[in-house]
């Protein structure tokens, strides 16, 4: 058990100018489950491999506990890693795979056996201990890879997209198993994924990366409620947040035919930079369908934005309406969540108003969050 610290850790691949990971600065508490998430090529796997010692650190430092491991080889870091394709040793049985690290460490045979059997029991692998990996299903292989990590009782678990080779249903199931196992063992864990749903459901905290730069580290709740910038706002949440560029008006911003109230200082800050517009973000579930009831700016038109329905996704409990709206003279795609029982028809026009207090305002030029 230990803390993990990335202290301005930087990785520049030979032959490139741009850093793959640029001054990554994260402190991970003892026993915490941190998820690194981002689109492909954002440097999340590189960060993990730097922590594992499989990738050089060109600048800055990485510490596990109080120990500076920046330039230590992987074998001296006391970590265990689960790879995307599991990297099980094909010539060894499940038991040998799980006990390999202990064997290398010179633990005696009877203890290796008891620890492997213990881990196998936790992961429901007892009857497969004598099999070779090729005789296992994808889910079982994944569990063996997990078993190989937990048998060692390392200071830190590293997981590099361990679920991406599983089918959708098994993935959801294993997701909760891994999260549960981690809570039970209380081992500090760094988990890499490109799937923001995994990130939101599993992590104590989530770190969003883009182009090697850390965008935001926060709890999933805060990440969802208060995204720090346009990128995080668009990345976290499914379907994605609606981001619409709107002009600044007195007392707020004009959103279709209504006013979205925004903090005065924020508006002032944006205006000071010379911005005429700001970007307003509204999550699909934060639109209210207002057919005539809400207060409108122009008297002759209904309140809110008129959305023409293109596609409706019915998910049973609720539905998502994918439509287009004309905002500021431009056609914009808008996603609105509606109740499962009041699903509009294709081609219908909905008037939607963003719910007060649930809007996010970002600076158009810098992408930074303006509202609080």
């Amino acid at each position, binding site marked *: 058990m230990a803390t993990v610290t990335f202290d301005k850790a930087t990785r520049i691949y030979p032959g490139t100018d741009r850093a793959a990971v640029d001054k990554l600065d994260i402190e991970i508490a003892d026993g915490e489950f941190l998820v690194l998430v981002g689109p492909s090529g954002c440097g999340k796997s590189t960060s993990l491999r730097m922590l594992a010692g499989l990738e050089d650190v060109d600048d800055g430092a990485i510490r596990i506990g109080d120990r500076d491991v920046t330039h230590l080889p992987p074998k001296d870091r006391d970590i265990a890693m689960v790879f995307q394709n599991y990297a099980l*040793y094909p010539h060894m049985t499940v038991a040998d795979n799980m006990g390999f690290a202990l064997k290398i460490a010179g633990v005696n045979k009877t203890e290796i056996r008891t620890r492997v059997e213990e881990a196998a029991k936790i992961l429901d692998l007892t009857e497969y201990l004598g099999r070779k990996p090729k005789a296992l299903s994808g889910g079982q292989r994944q569990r063996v890879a997990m078993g190989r990590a937990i048998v060692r009782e390392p200071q830190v678990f590293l997981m590099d997209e361990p679920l991406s080779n599983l089918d959708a249903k098994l993935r959801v199931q294993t997701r909760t198993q891994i999260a549960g196992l981690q809570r039970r063992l209380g081992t500090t864990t760094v988990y890499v994924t490109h799937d923001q749903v995994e990130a939101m459901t599993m992590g104590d905290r989530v770190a969003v990366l883009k182009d090697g730069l850390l965008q935001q580290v926060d709890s999933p709740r805060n990440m969802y409620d208060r995204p720090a910038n346009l990128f995080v706002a668009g990345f976290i949440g499914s379907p994605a947040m609606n981001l619409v560029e709107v002009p600044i008006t007195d007392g707020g911003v004009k959103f279709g035919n209504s006013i979205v109230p925004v903090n005065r200082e924020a508006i002032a800050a944006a205006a000071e930079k010379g911005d005429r517009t700001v970007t307003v973000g509204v999550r699909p579930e934060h639109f209210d369908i207002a057919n005539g009831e809400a207060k409108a700016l122009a008297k002759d038109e209904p309140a809110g934005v008129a959305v023409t329905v293109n596609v409706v996704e019915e998910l049973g409990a609720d539905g998502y309406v994918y439509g287009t709206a004309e905002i500021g003279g431009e056609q914009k795609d808008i996603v609105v969540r509606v109740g499962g029982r009041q699903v509009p028809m294709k081609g219908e026009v909905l008037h939607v108003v963003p719910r007060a207090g649930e809007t996010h305002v970002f600076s158009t030029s810098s992408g930074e969050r303006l509202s609080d």
Partner: protein
Amino acid sequence: MSASMAAPDTAGPVTPPAGTPRRAKGITGTRPWVAALFLLPALVLLGALVVYPIGYSIVRSLYDAGGSGFVGVRNYGTVFSDSGTLTAVRNNAIWVVVAPSITTALGLIFAVLTERVRWGTAFKLVVFMPMAISMLAAGIIFRLVYEQDPNQGVANAVISSVHDTFSAGSAYPGARPRPGADLAPTAGGSYTTRSTVRPGTAALLPLVGIPQAELPSSAQQAGRPRGGGITGTVWLDFTPGGGGRAGVIDPGEKGLKGVTVQAVKVGRVVASAKTAADGTFTLPATAQGAQLRLPASNFAARYGGVDWLGPTLVTPSIIGAYVWMWAGFAMVLIAAGLAGVPRELLEAARVDGANEWQVFRKITVPLLAPVLAVVVVTLMINVLKIFDLVYIIAPGATQNNAMVLALKLYLTSFGGGNDQGVGSAISVLLLLLVLPVMIFNIRRIRREGRR
């Protein structure tokens, strides 16, 4: 379906109408004569070039040298009672065990190392290059490499220069005292004076038998010892141009530098000195009354290097040449196998705490096992048939020590023996030796195919 059985015209289209004659087809749906036609060229070639020669060899091995008299298995009796054939079998066994294992090990090392260095591909090219040379040319190259004379053979040139670096050679190989001088040969090739030394009387130790050309260019005119004490001169008692007197230091005669002179009393060395540039030496007073000895180390012959193609080393030497040729082949195959080993497995092992050697031993080598088996078996088959390298490298004097079955077969049948009956018997023996390896290989390939 059963309901429609009564009405034959409603039967499904897949059921052929009953009673229609159909041409017989094999399981692949091909007519037998078409199949035969396509197989014919291969069958004819294999039959003419493989099956018939094997069959004929077996038959021929039962006849005498002329090929007319049936002798039964007597040829086999000749083969097994001939010590030359037994040497060949023993050498073949050495070859099969040693050559493939060394070649594969070397190939593995090269493959793993070249993967990690920047100029790996260039290195691979160089190691693979000998494969482009014919066995004959390689044999000639190594015949020269193993030449006894360090001036011609690279192997001995290296060995003797290393040897000379660590142990100084003798100063004047082949030198001997002038006949009639006071020096007499004694045990171990040394020379000892009959008389004893006294202070004030210089000891004269004349040597001959050194060509003028081999004297160091710094050699000086031999000097008379100066000063008191026990002194003397070692010099080359030969005047260039003639006219010198025996046992006397004449003008033009050179002193011999660096000769060790020992003072011996009753078999014990009491003092020793080295001669100066003009050949003079001075011994301490304790040497008084001692005999002077020039130890054998002054005259030892120059180190001749290793007798590579002598009776004991000839087979290992030829195996060395074979390894030089085939290590590149092993390396290329193993490198291809290595490229197929997933990087993650090696990374996983490193994260699991294994050091590089353990990763190599426990992960890389087991994963390469199928490739290593292919390489070893291919080399084994190749080595059992080895002929050209042995025929070319082994000199006539030690050819019998280097004998292998294929060479024995050739020599018995054509190269002097002219007994194709016994030759055929040897060829059958060779076939029987190769067969198990072939069967092993075929079974392994089948097993791989099934996987």
